């Protein structure tokens, strides 16, 4: 099969990949441009990066985004994994269809709709109960709602493929179902949990639309600050900031991919061992 890819297909594949990467690479290249005129190359310089360190608005926003990211990805992995266990292990329960729908809908729902509806909920809740005030809390809740959906989808497929014989053996030997799950199945899906933690982190770090709706005065995340700068046009300090965020996200995704690949390989090895 491998030697029968037509040159036409290879050309399209190369064009597609070039289209995806050239703008990002050019952006990173220009972030090292010494000239403050974005279109003229004035030599190599890291001055835009050092300037970022002195920009308190950007530093505050970055710190807020990182804090939100850590809380969101931890919460999403817990809730998303519970949802995945529910959907894979409990075949029949009341609300299964509801849970399936609510786990899949955030993946396609336009962010602007999710953002508006969640804002209206938070406003009404604040009006009725005096909680939550818009800012950190509301952004965290809103992000968990869509990040946990991604976690569920990732963990669900891993859990569905997991071998249950060890867990059953542990239960036969007297372990409770929770204990048996923690001792046998959990280590197997742990890399999937770690990689969905990283992916949730990148999703939360990148989100602009939902954050803009549910955030309150004084709580500006990094994408919100970048957006307000980008609306004014291309500028060298945004180039540097954007390059940093892209690299951070890239490292997270590559590491997540590495974890997933390793478990996949381990599973294949285990299956081969079992066959012998």
């Amino acid at each position, binding site marked *: 099969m491998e030697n029968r890819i037509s040159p036409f297909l290879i050309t399209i594949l190369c064009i597609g990949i070039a289209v995806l990467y050239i703008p990002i690479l050019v952006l990173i290249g220009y972030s090292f441009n010494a000239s403050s005129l974005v279109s003229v190359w004035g030599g190599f310089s890291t001055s835009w990066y050092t300037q970022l360190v002195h920009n308190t608005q950007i530093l505050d926003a970055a710190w807020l985004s990182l804090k939100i990211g850590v809380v969101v990805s931890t919460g999403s992995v817990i809730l998303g994994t*519970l949802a995945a266990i529910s959907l894979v292990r409990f075949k029949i329960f009341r609300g299964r269809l509801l849970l399936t729908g609510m786990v899949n809908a955030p993946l396609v729902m336009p962010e602007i709709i999710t953002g508006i509806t969640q804002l209206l909920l938070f406003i009404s809740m604040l009006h009725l109960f005096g909680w939550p005030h818009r800012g950190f809390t509301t952004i965290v809740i809103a992000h968990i709602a869509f990040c946990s959906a991604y976690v569920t989808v990732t963990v669900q497929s891993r859990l569905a493929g997991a071998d249950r014989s060890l867990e059953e053996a542990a239960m036969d030997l007297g372990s409770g179902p929770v204990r048996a799950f923690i001792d046998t199945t959990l280590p197997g899906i742990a890399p999937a949990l770690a990689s969905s933690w990283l992916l949730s982190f990148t999703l939360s770090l990148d989100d602009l639309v939902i954050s803009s709706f549910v955030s309150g005065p004084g709580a500006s995340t990094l994408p919100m600050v970048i957006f307000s700068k980008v609306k004014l046009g291309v500028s060298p300090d945004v180039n540097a900031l954007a390059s940093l965020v892209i690299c951070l996200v890239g490292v997270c995704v590559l590491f997540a991919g590495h974890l997933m690949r390793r478990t996949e390989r381990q599973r294949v090895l285990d299956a081969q061992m079992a066959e012998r």
Partner: protein
Amino acid sequence: MTSAIRDAAPARALPRAALGEWLKRRGKWLIILPPLLFLLVFFLIPFGFALVISLADTAVRVPPFTDILSVSPDWHINLTLNLGNFKYLFTDEVYGLSYLYSLKTAFFSTLICLALGYPMAYAIARTSKSTQSVLLLIIILPFWTSFLLRVYALEGIIRETGLLNTALLWLGVVHHPLQIMRTTLAVYLGIIYSYLPFMVLPLFATLEKLDHSLLEAAADLGSPPWRTFVDVTLPLSMPGVIAGSMLVFIPAIGEFVIPTLLGGPDNLMIGRVLWDEFFGNRDWPVASAVAIAFLVLLVGPIALYQHYNTKQLES
């Protein structure tokens, strides 16, 4: 003394046994309920709130809309529904026009993504397993990178003094820089550039599972390659085509960042109208009505996506 101890032991054991019994029968709800309740309260119920507020009236107060339910001093419950917001959507043509414009833009962007993404996914599916994983990673990386930053990166290429115009001027292809920014073309480029990975990944997932013996059988029976493609490959990859198209089409209709940063004043997509209604005019009831009407029109495509997605997961 001893009998007292003997009596007390089962009495103490009883609650524990009952707890164990209860856990065995109902324990699964401890796992199901947290995500179910969280998503119910913070994802599904908000739509109910949007529906309720879309039926309210604007008011100068915090929050800026009237209560639908009110209790008068003599304990009569008054329900005031205001359908005016929905009527307004039909009288002011900006909503209808921007919705149709969003549909059109999303539709053609999806077609172009499909035309570009299908051969890409097909080529990846044809390579060896080890090349596949590298190529997939190359596609997945931009998938997770923020739209905002990627759209900004695209702006660096297509703006008047950007790389594209510099190159074209240098090559002598054009004598004046091309105006791409703030045009419809820029919006299309932005959507295609941002959403291409969303098309390739589901397509790859179905094309990878394609049974090659079917293709060989068709070839053995004398079918030319294009015939095999139309008769065998394309129908079998339909679930991927639909899933990928919906993953591009649905979010593209509601796109806000791309038309705002790359488009001109003519590129009035529904996401922009919603944003302005909310942050500019602060007319929350009308914005809720726009969102609800938008959502109603999305039910069909979302159901289609769910259907093919679950089918793909089951196979």
